[in-house]
């Protein structure tokens, strides 16, 4: 191996190990900062309690529920839209429409989150308030709708790549057998492109779960345990953003490390579940 090769390999290896270590390192840091909570046994009670600092309750149960419901609902809305868009773009659309819609989707993926947030606050929220949910319009449904739009471009890009990767000969064979486009999607493209579809879904869910600004601006941030999608709710990420201004020595501030740990573990859990189920599907 030449010296140049060795150098290149070392640089690439360093980059890989570096980013991998960073992910683990962040987790360890959060574990370290949240350690006093963990050893005092308060950590698990925090997961089930409500957040009422005036009564010395620093639980994050409402936020846990808020994060889960908002991100899953966003995925539920975003996934069919993205899958449909990807399928229409790759299979049904004529070439000019295909490139135009792809360009649009790539552009959408680059729009800053705060822009979606602003549009939602000034258009979606009043619409929700007056026409659909009543109340203030700041609720789980509004946040999930905006997040669905936010995560759709990422998912569409993954799906399009996956669907375009399916061998042309298979596609022609389905056409030759007289298969309809829907049959082609269900029996050829979806099973063949499964790994890319999984990856896209994981990315989408991760973005929905990790997004802070949209839920902070649109979900309402109430500390009550949400009972319906029309209720105002607070996500873990928004909670961290809201509480970080509190007294550094106080229990309020300590409790946000538990939010961080939980958020990290939840993301890992969701991703693993999707990865595992997709593996069984592939075998």
């Amino acid at each position, binding site marked *: 191996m030449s010296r140049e090769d060795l150098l290149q390999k070392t640089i690439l290896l360093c980059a890989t190990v570096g980013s991998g270590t960073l992910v683990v390192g962040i987790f360890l840091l959060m574990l370290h900062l949240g350690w006093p909570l963990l050893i005092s046994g308060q950590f698990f009670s925090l997961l089930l309690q409500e957040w009422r600092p005036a009564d010395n309750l620093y639980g994050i149960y409402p936020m846990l529920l808020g994060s889960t419901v908002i991100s899953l609902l966003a995925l539920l809305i975003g996934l069919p839209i993205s899958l449909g868009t990807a399928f229409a773009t790759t299979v049904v659309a004529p070439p000019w429409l295909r490139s135009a819609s792809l360009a649009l989707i790539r552009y959408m993926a680059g729009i800053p989150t705060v822009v979606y947030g602003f549009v939602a606050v*000034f258009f979606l*929220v*009043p619409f929700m308030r007056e026409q659909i949910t009543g109340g*203030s*319009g700041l609720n789980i449904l509004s946040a999930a709708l905006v997040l669905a739009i936010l995560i759709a471009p990422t998912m569409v890009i993954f799906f399009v790549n996956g669907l375009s990767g399916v061998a042309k000969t298979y596609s022609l064979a389905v056409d030759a057998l007289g298969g309809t486009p829907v049959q082609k999607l269900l029996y050829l493209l979806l099973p063949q492109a499964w790994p890319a579809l999984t990856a896209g879904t994981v990315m989408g869910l991760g973005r929905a779960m990790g997004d802070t600004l949209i839920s902070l601006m649109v979900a309402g941030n109430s500390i009550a345990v949400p009972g319906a999608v029309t209720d105002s709710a607070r996500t873990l990420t928004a909670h961290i953003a*809201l509480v970080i*201004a*509190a*007294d550094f020595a*106080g229990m309020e501030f300590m409790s946000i490390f538990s939010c961080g740990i939980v958020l990290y573990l939840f993301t890992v859990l969701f991703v693993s579940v999707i990865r595992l189920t997709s593996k069984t599907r592939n075998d």
Partner: protein
Amino acid sequence: MRNFFATLTVLCAIMISGAAVHAADLDAFTGQSGTLKIAGGTAHIPVMKDAAQAIMEMNSEIRITIAGGGSGVGIKQAGEGLIDIGNSGREATSQELETYGLTMIRWAIDGVSVVVNPKNSVQALSSVQLRDIFAGRLTNWQEVGGEDRPINLYTRDEASGTRNVFWTKAIGKEAIDTKANVVVSNGAMKTAVANDPYAIGYVSVGHIDETVAAVTLDGVTPSIATVKSGDYKVARGLFSLTKGEPQGLAKLFIDYLLSPSGQAIVAAKGFIPVK
């Protein structure tokens, strides 16, 4: 940890603050040098940052660090001599003043006003009605003479000084309905209330403009004038405390806050000057 945040705050102060240099009031700092440590109430920070910026720009031999921590921390650390100036958004109790031998200086007043959307026909409430609304006992505007629409509550996070003064002085520490929406700042509160015709919230008096309507409470309209005269009760002083009489840089800094340039910063940050 606290040191880290203090350093961060100062770095932010240096980067964010605009230059507001009024040379004459800064003359006292000529030839001075040393470090001045300030911590405590977070409501004070915007004014502190601008004042520190102006002083440090004029004389680079002076280093001023500003940290948060809350009013309790400000009083305690000033008393124990850990910092030179402790900030507090509430008056220190006579016990605290005696135990530590503290001197308390008020350099601004912060009033908190209840606000509703300008379209709302209800623009006057009694304190009993206000308490019932925020506790979640009155849930429809009709019950206080308005439209037949649910009341949308907006509040601030627990770390907010504005929330603290509202909670203590406007609604008598009644627990705020957990279903209330929570916004992150006075600015966000104004936007939320300006956009929601059925909203009720509260902001620092300095933030009120034509996009929101200030609610008359028990017959008193909150304004800079009524807060100054003491007729509007939902207000508090912004205080700085020193152990013993202020001396050296701490004295110069507090004198600067009370000077015309210092009071101009106070007014620019939405508080009411005391001079």
